[in-house]
């Protein structure tokens, strides 16, 4: 099986939709979900792979576009495709309560989002990455504005404008790379990047940082994020937080490790990530809207991930993989449950958590919140512990202190929310979940608990993936070796 299917099949599905619509209302939904289940299964079948797989499109690598499926990217591909599958399954039951207008278009957008997220992770051609960057961007803009009320449209306009500016910087960086190196292939660029003059290297890195920085939601460039989360609908927030940001994060650091293998700006990036976490948590303290609160919490976690990935250290990257896994799942749980709460109680103010009458949902949400917080025996703890440990070993006590302070602030509001969920108060009407939704949410929560209590099950894989991601030399050898 070829890794190209991860992109070709969702696109094929998207183009097929006018035919599938003839099958009735459920035709598109079921076809899309079945295809996503197939893709998730395919992704898991790649887990055992010994050697990285190189997939050639049209002509051989340094000239053409190709896809690399190695241990690091297979983790992200499997995460994205299985989370998207779970999302679709959840939505299939959720739509009894609330369904989007033009459902067929909604499913098209889900699939293009999945295809572009996977494309960003797999592609090794920088212009191809730009194309996927734009597909993911456009799908996300439309999903933001999907509800067509004033808030959603305004969020869409803001998202679209920042995205356009980001893509201008990215395009300029790609142009400078092509003019000076004469290639678009990441491996060849990585090989020749050392030889460029210093100020050009700095400029290209700066432009790449500006281009991706808007999308990876790092501190000075993340002013738009909370508006987008508040404006778009709650279910979709889950996708943004769990899939879109993670794909951009992976591709940004993938390019960074290839271009700057010795970690030239890493101290700057580590402190920027830590600062980003601190600022977001401070702002999060004052929020009264749950969607905004979770958005800022998401920004905080992204800051932590940014700091961890910047460390060029396999232990820290291992921790970052854990956080990616834990945070994606936890935020998925939180936003999916929040969408049920919003539908039932018509409010997303934080005081609503005092009034909800849904013991099971509350319990699952509690697990997710505690996992984000990094409470032992949950997956988030392992990630945070690994990151802080390797920071201590590297002597980065400043960044460590900032992250600890930020975690403290995080615990203030998450404990407040947990208190709201557990305190004995006058509760509203009972919110009953569908059985399938309960099973899906419990499955996600179970994953968090399993990865937290028995991290040794996945530590080997994570360590290997982290080493593969850091190892620029064998990546270059894999691509350029295919020429002969």
């Amino acid at each position, binding site marked *: 099986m070829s890794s190209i299917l991860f992109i070709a099949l969702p696109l094929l599905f998207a183009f097929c939709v006018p035919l599938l619509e003839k099958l009735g209302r459920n035709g598109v939904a079921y076809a899309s979900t079945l295809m996503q289940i197939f893709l998730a299964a395919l992704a898991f079948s790649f887990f055992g792979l010994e050697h990285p797989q190189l997939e050639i499109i049209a002509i051989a690598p340094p000239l053409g576009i190709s896809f690399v499926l190695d241990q690091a990217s297979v983790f992200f591909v499997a995460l994205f495709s299985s989370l998207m599958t779970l999302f679709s399954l959840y939505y299939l039951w959720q739509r009894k309560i609330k369904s989007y207008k033009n459902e067929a278009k909604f499913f098209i957008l889900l699939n293009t989002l999945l295809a572009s997220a996977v494309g960003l992770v797999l592609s090794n051609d920088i212009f191809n990455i730009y194309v996927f960057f734009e597909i993911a961007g456009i799908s996300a803009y439309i999903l933001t504005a999907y509800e067509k009320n004033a808030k959603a449209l305004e969020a869409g306009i803001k998202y679209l404008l920042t995205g356009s500016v980001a893509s201008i910087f990215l395009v300029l960086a790609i142009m400078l790379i092509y003019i000076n190196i004469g*290639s678009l292939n990441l491996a060849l660029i990585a090989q020749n990047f050392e030889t460029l003059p210093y100020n050009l290297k700095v*400029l290209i890195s700066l432009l790449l940082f500006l281009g991706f920085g808007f999308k990876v939601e790092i501190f000075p460039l993340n002013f738009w994020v909370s508006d987008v989360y508040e404006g778009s609908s709650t279910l979709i927030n889950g996708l943004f937080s769990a899939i879109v940001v993670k794909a951009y994060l992976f591709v940004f650091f993938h390019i960074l490790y290839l271009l700057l293998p010795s970690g030239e700006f890493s101290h700057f990036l580590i402190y920027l990530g830590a600062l980003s976490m601190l600022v977001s948590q401070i702002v999060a303290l004052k929020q009264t809207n749950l969607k905004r609160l979770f958005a800022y919490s998401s920004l905080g976690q992204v800051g932590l991930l940014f700091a961890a990935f910047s460390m060029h250290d396999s232990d820290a990257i291992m921790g970052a993989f854990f956080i990616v896994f834990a945070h994606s799942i936890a935020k998925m749980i939180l936003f999916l449950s929040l969408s049920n709460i919003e539908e039932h109680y018509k409010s997303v103010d934080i005081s609503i958590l005092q009034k909800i009458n849904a013991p099971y949902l509350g319990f699952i949400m509690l697990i997710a919140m505690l996992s984000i917080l990094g409470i032992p025996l949950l997956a988030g703890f392992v990630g945070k512990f690994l990151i802080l440990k390797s920071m201590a070993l590297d002597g980065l006590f400043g960044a460590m202190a900032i992250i600890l302070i930020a975690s403290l602030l995080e615990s203030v509001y998450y404990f407040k929310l947990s208190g709201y969920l557990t305190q004995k108060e006058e509760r509203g009407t009972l919110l009953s979940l569908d059985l399938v939704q309960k099973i899906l949410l419990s499955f996600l929560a179970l994953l968090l608990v399993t990865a937290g209590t028995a991290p040794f099950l996945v530590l080997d894989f994570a360590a290997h993936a982290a080493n593969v991601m850091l190892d620029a030399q064998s990546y270059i050898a894999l691509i350029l070796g295919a020429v002969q």
Partner: protein
Amino acid sequence: MNLKRKLALSDISGFALASVLVLTIFNVILQNSLLTQNSAGNALLALSSHEGVANAVTTVVVYFRGFDTLGEIAVLFIASLGIGLILENPHAKQGKKEESNFMLKTAAKLLFPIILLFGIYIMVYGHLSPGGGFQGGVIIASGVLLLLISSNNFHMPHKLIAILETFAGISYVFIGLIGLLLLDTFLGNFLPHDISQMGMLFSGGIIPIIYIIVGIKVGSEMSFIVQNLLQRGEHD
């Protein structure tokens, strides 16, 4: 023109910020503007003489970097879908349009076949001369635009265009998958492409076929975009 108001504080600070950024970029590029001679483009040109068609840009767009073009088609498809979604208005009444004048109506009738022909020409000869699917498709869409603005009772054949669009999208991916099946590379050129035929209309294997498919897809997407943007205001 009030000069004082124009030079408000925000303008000056904006200008300063913009200048600093652009001057930095300018300065760095000015210091090292070295154009490498052994670029990937020259290697592709060398390959073009036994893999490609007469128009090297078409070879690159459709074949060597064909995956980008698939992505680009997807972008256009999603954008068209999004515009339809955002601008569709179920409460819209088919309001009365002003009667467009006689000159415009006659000219549109006369011009539309010519524009269509020109678009198809640009599309079909994309592998031999400048032009191709994108340009041809947009030209055809501009013909549709002319019909839309000139005539009150012109209705776009939605069903037909949707079928064409679906067919084009599916066949693009299918051609890619056939290449994967037969030649082990997605979008591989599995049809005979004899270089002695270069410059003929029927040459280049799948390249002209894909470009025509791209043209159909772009033409129908652009027609939808144009129609949606034009007719949104027609209620109340």
